[in-house]
């Protein structure tokens, strides 16, 4: 039986690790390469890097980080944030990332999903979704709307319809981030995760809101998600990956316990 994945997310800016709350007030907390290597040793199943470098000119720093990470860890990792073009995708994958995640760029140009899937395979292309709960309208029948640019811009696009469309275009996986839950440590947005996960046939990574192992249990227990993204709960030492996995394992969620 397939294990549920526990995936630490490392926010990187100008080659340094940060973690923001609600996309504001980021503080440096370390070196992404060393942190990734530590997570590898600690039993992370995969690692997500999210590049929040503001300037496109500084992207080479991230590519260099990706290259160093690939020499140190032998589990899959993905890179997202600031991926705007096919060439951006190619560079990240060539530097050693297993997957590349597109978010705002895919909303502006959905063709980048199919282009990437065609060239590298669907398994390489992760659709990052930033989603906000809104009133149900004719335009947003699911009550969840896609937002972009780190949550600043509403798009008028229904999240469920977008997830299905991206799957059809060739996305191999969805990283589903609730803007409302992100950074709250109050738990994942379970309704949203269940809605998307039950309507697509590609894996869904729940993102935003994890504060305790129980929150992770809640989203993984009934297949609302295939994997859980975590950040602050392990970055600041409140929990280890092993503690989280032991908690899940003892409650009947299949996770990888040997590494």
């Amino acid at each position, binding site marked *: 039986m397939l294990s549920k994945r526990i995936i630490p997310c490392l926010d990187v800016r100008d080659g340094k690790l940060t973690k923001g709350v609600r996309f504001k007030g980021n503080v440096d907390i370390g070196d992404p390469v060393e942190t990734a290597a530590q997570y590898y040793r600690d039993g992370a199943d995969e690692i997500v890097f999210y590049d929040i470098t503001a300037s496109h000119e500084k992207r080479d720093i991230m590519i260099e980080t990706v290259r160093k990470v690939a020499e140190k860890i*032998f589990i899959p990792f993905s890179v997202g944030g600031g991926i705007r073009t096919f060439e951006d995708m190619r560079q990240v994958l*060539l530097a*050693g990332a297993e997957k590349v995640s597109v978010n705002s760029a895919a909303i502006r140009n959905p063709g980048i999903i199919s282009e990437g899937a065609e060239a590298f*395979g669907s398994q390489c292309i992760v659709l990052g979704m930033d989603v906000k709960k809104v009133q149900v309208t004719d335009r947003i029948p699911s009550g969840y709307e896609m937002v972009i640019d780190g949550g600043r811009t509403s798009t008028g696009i229904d999240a469920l319809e977008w997830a299905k469309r991206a799957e059809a275009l060739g996305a191999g996986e969805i990283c589903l981030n609730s803007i409302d839950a992100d950074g709250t440590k109050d738990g994942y947005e379970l309704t949203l995760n269940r809605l998307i996960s039950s309507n697509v046939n590609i*894996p869904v990574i729940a993102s935003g809101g994890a504060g305790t192992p129980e929150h992770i249990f809640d989203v993984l227990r009934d297949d609302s998600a295939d*994997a859980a993204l975590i950040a602050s709960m392990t970055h600041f030492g409140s929990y280890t990956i092993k503690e989280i996995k032991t908690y899940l394992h003892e409650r009947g969620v299949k996770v990888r316990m040997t590494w």
Partner: protein
Amino acid sequence: MIAIIDYNAGNLTSVKRAMDRLGRKSVITDDCSSIARAERIIFPGVGAAGRAMTDLKKKGLDRALIEAFNEKKPILGICLGTQIIMERSEENDTECLGIIRGKVKRFAVESSGLKVPHMGWNSVMLRRKHPLFQGVEPDSEFYFVHSYYPLPDDPDRVLGETDYIARFASALSAGNLAAMQFHPEKSGEPGLKILDNFCKWDGRDYVE
């Protein structure tokens, strides 16, 4: 020298990096004479069977591989490489190398409700001992990404099995050839152990 076969099938550098980490000399190559000279061969791959076979044939790599197999060189198939060594794949209805008899089937998605591709970590239940799995903890898990799986005619070719939708052969062996449906280069320390074992393997299918 270990030859990592290059046939435009996805990112081969991750296998190379794993070899570097293990301190093993390897080269990514699509040159038949380098493959003929190599001490052992890794046949990786991500992508689709049809295109892969076309590219292999174009470079004569299909014959180079079969020759290496007949010469009893240790060969390790990974993911698509493991499927290509079978006779035939349902993917693009492709005639493959036929080193192991049997076919490659697609996961039946409708019946189970489970997602395809099979992506993530899963266990491999070994059917017997094998030099490549020596020192690997039995409850280790390995990283899979695939929508098709090998189905050998001869059950003796099945080295390990994995449960997903159906129970399928996730590790195969045929003398000097071993083949994994999962990615040992992305499966953490247990995966590196398999690769390290392969680098030391004499190509004989036994465990003392």
